[in-house]
């Protein structure tokens, strides 16, 4: 299960390097994601741009890590390929998460919020 963390500013980006987020790795995904979290980080982004296929078990694992992080922390998703986007839409879970089309879009959004905070 290839899941790696890269911090960009205050954002902990968790990149899923697997092409398939399916039933066979759903449990490992949850475990590995939890291992990559820490108390201090407040904002996590799951980068799914490498994931070409996700089934309902994979979706369940994403929901599980979101619940694990809880209300106190922010969890967003970035980089949905068409197949993965379809699963979020059909299950209506796209309305549960803040989803950025690309990682660039996510970073631009975070930069804009930081600028606003600096200005005020």
């Amino acid at each position: 299960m290839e899941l790696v963390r890269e911090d960009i500013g205050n954002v902990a980006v968790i990149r899923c390097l697997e092409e398939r987020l399916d039933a066979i790795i759903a449990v490992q995904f949850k475990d590995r994601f939890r291992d990559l979290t820490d108390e201090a980080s407040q904002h996590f982004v799951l980068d799914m741009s490498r994931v070409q296929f996700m089934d309902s078990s994979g979706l369940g694992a994403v929901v599980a890590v979101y619940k694990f992080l809880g209300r106190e922390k922010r969890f967003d998703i970035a980089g949905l390929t068409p197949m993965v986007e379809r699963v979020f839409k059909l299950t209506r879970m796209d309305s549960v998460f803040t989803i950025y089309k690309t990682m660039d879009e996510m970073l631009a959004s975070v930069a804009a919020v930081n600028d606003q905070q600096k200005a005020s």
Partner: protein
Amino acid sequence: MGKDGKAGQTYRPDAIALRFAATSADVRSSMILVRKMLGVMELSQDDIGRVELVLAEALNNVVEHACVDRADHLVLLDLSHESGRLNCRICDPGNPMPGAQPPDGHKADPTAALDDLPEGGFGWMLIRELADVVKYQRVGDENHLFLSIPIASSVNGLGPHP
């Protein structure tokens, strides 16, 4: 030969049959093979994606419910392409479906509180969204599931029989 048996034309199959063990690992490798074969059948990437999702969900259910802990069970997957549809038949020798019928599948409630968000139960909902025919029969000691998925015509326009 494919449906258009003209000389010099590339062979294009319109049916696939696979037999594999009722394990998650075999489901995954079968899905990767099916994806390639559907490409050879000249389905669009969008259609391949929908078929793959339906089959993965149905086969996950076979592995996790009907044939749970029975890696010795063999699953049979038959796919056939006719105009505007991909028909799928999945046969397994596992436990029958509860109530002898496939579940309806429920939509998740995205407005649910964080702790109440569902982590599962999306499988049948996805199957029913994408397959417009779902038939289940218990035949002897086997489950037979028939799914039909509407697809766009092939990239090169494989139409109905002339």
